[in-house]
């Protein structure tokens, strides 16, 4: 195959101007490197906060929504109305026929896991001290499978609840506040007035105060007992899906199967999401600005190259190269600089990610939440090349418009 003469010319220009090429490439490298690093940082934080959310929250929850009575109720006489104080109706939180609904949900292709549980408020008491909190009555083995709870157990195991009907698993914060240890008894009372003395068979630490200080897990039957309800009583279904980002769409699909409230996690964690969004936009715009500044570097270097080579361009045109050829030559030079610079930038970004990911933050965070994410590498590479091609196009276009006669007649 004949190598195109345009490529040969561009290549020679690059080779004979190593310093300028290198400087341009370094500019791009810094831009792309910082872009990659900042976006990985942002993505790492988002992943961390998301993981934190899903430690205790399902992608989708199904429950009975509180109903508020309407203020005006038409009277049977049709000429008068009953005016009422609007208030929460004292309806049961019970989901009817939960097993069938659970089965229907489990049969959806996008559902990985679903389980039913009872949620209720409790008071924890030890001696004279009393703390408010919430209890979840659930099949703990299934729950642990769904939320990977074993990872957060610092004493005992999730399995021990099954072996011990009158057991309870509590958070580290609660244990500390009430000076409780494994094997101690904890008195729990429900709003319904049922008091249970349960034995602590497990302690967890999830790094989230509302969980660690106020949540306990009991067996499903204990939960029902404390609410004085029947054996099929269920307040909530938890559903995990294949893609949490699509939870909203999945929730919409589930609505058709039930009249109960179907809530995706984006609604329950709206404040978290908006913080994520702010961070993504901020970091994204800063890093993009840096990348664009790097592109101006390429623009400058190519512009000055073209000014220096204006005679050469005139000769090329005289001996039969047309405008398109000239654009190709200089775009190719921009592309070579861009590819070298972008490759260097990816290495730089990878180096920064490597260093930062080894910084130990301590506490529940552990190591700095930053990861090597291939899609971000790809995105940085493509964006780098596109911006450099744009920056190269305008000088190349100017070169193509050089009028050779005006150069020769000078």
């Amino acid at each position: 195959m004949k190598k195109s003469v345009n490529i040969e010319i561009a290549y020679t220009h690059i080779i004979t101007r190593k310093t300028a090429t290198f400087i341009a490439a370094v500019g791009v490298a810094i831009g792309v490197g910082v872009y990659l690093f900042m976006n990985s940082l942002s993505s790492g934080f988002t992943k961390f906060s998301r993981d934190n959310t899903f430690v205790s929250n399902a992608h989708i929850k199904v429950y009975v929504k509180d109903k508020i009575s309407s203020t005006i109720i038409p009277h049977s006489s049709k000429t008068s109305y009953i005016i009422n104080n609007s208030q929460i109706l004292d309806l049961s939180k019970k989901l009817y026929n939960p097993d069938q609904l659970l089965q229907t949900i489990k049969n959806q292709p996008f559902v990985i896991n679903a389980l039913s549980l009872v949620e209720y408020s409790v008071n924890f008491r030890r001696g004279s001290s009393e703390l408010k909190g919430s209890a979840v009555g659930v099949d703990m083995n299934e729950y642990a499978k769904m939320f990977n709870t074993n990872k957060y157990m610092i004493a005992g195991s999730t399995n021990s609840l099954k072996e011990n009907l009158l057991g309870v698993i509590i958070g580290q914060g609660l244990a500390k506040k009430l000076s409780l240890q494994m094997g101690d008894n904890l008195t729990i009372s429900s709003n319904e007035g049922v008091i249970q003395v349960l034995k602590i068979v497990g302690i967890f630490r999830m790094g989230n105060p509302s969980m660690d200080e106020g949540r306990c897990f009991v067996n499903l039957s204990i939960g029902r007992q404390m609410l004085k309800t029947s054996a099929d009583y269920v307040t909530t279904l938890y559903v995990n899906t294949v893609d949490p980002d699509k939870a909203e769409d999945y929730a919409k699909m589930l609505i058709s199967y039930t009249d109960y409230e179907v809530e995706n996690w984006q609604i329950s964690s709206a404040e978290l999401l908006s913080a994520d969004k702010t961070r993504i936009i901020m970091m994204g715009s800063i890093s993009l600005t840096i990348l664009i500044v790097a592109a101006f570097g390429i623009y400058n270097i190519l512009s000055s190259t073209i000014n220096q080579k204006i005679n050469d361009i005139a000769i090329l045109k005289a001996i039969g190269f047309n405008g398109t050829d000239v654009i190709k030559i200089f775009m190719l030079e921009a592309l070579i600089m861009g590819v070298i610079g972008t490759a260097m930038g990816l290495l730089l970004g990878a180096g920064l990610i490597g260093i930062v990911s080894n910084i130990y933050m301590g506490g529940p965070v552990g190591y700095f939440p930053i990861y090597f994410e291939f899609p971000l590498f790809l995105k940085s590479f493509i964006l780098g090349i596109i911006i450099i091609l744009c920056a190269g196009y305008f000088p190349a276009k100017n070169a193509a418009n050089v009028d050779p006669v005006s150069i020769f007649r000078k």
Partner: protein
Amino acid sequence: MTKDPILKAKNIVKYFYDPATFKALNEVSFVAYKGEFLTLMGKSGCGKSTLLYCISTMDTKYEGELVLNDKLVTGLSPNKMAQIRNEYIGFVFQFHYLLPEFTCLKNVMIPALKLNKLSHQEIEERAYQKLEILGLKDQAHKQANKLSGGQQQRVSIARALINDPAIILCDEPTGNLDSKNTQIVFDIFKQLASENGQTIIAVTHDNDFAKASDRTIEMADGKIIG
């Protein structure tokens, strides 16, 4: 010997607008024949260089018609014109204008590589041949800007010859050369015209150079006067 016309210029009119409107060429018509060594002479500003660039197809902003090899060139697209320049026209300039970062050989090869009709190896052989004709074979692998002025001028002639163009246009080809190099260049042109049947059109100020050519067109104030 019959005379075949290779280039016809018909009523070429050219204006310059900057700084003031000025008629640089006033209905210039002439014919150049195959194998002719033609020189254009005249005082500075008489329009001879302007005429050269009009017939070179690089300057397209003129009135009139230009016929090259029986084909009307005026009004073709810029890309088409670039192609015609590449294949049919060779250029030699006063300031040798080589591409400085390429070797002499590469400089000579580039128009042929652009034309893309022969293999790389054939082009290289031809380039060596042309350099040999001009006595520069031993300089082939030197970088162009390392050569003396006379040598660079000869390399640029070799470059003009690589595609065996029908016409070679020269703008003061000997303007920057000493008498010895001028003689060499002149002899080469003479030989190209008589032996290869290529047409040379050269703008010059050098009276001796012009007298020794086949025909001299004299210009004054944008018109041909003889």
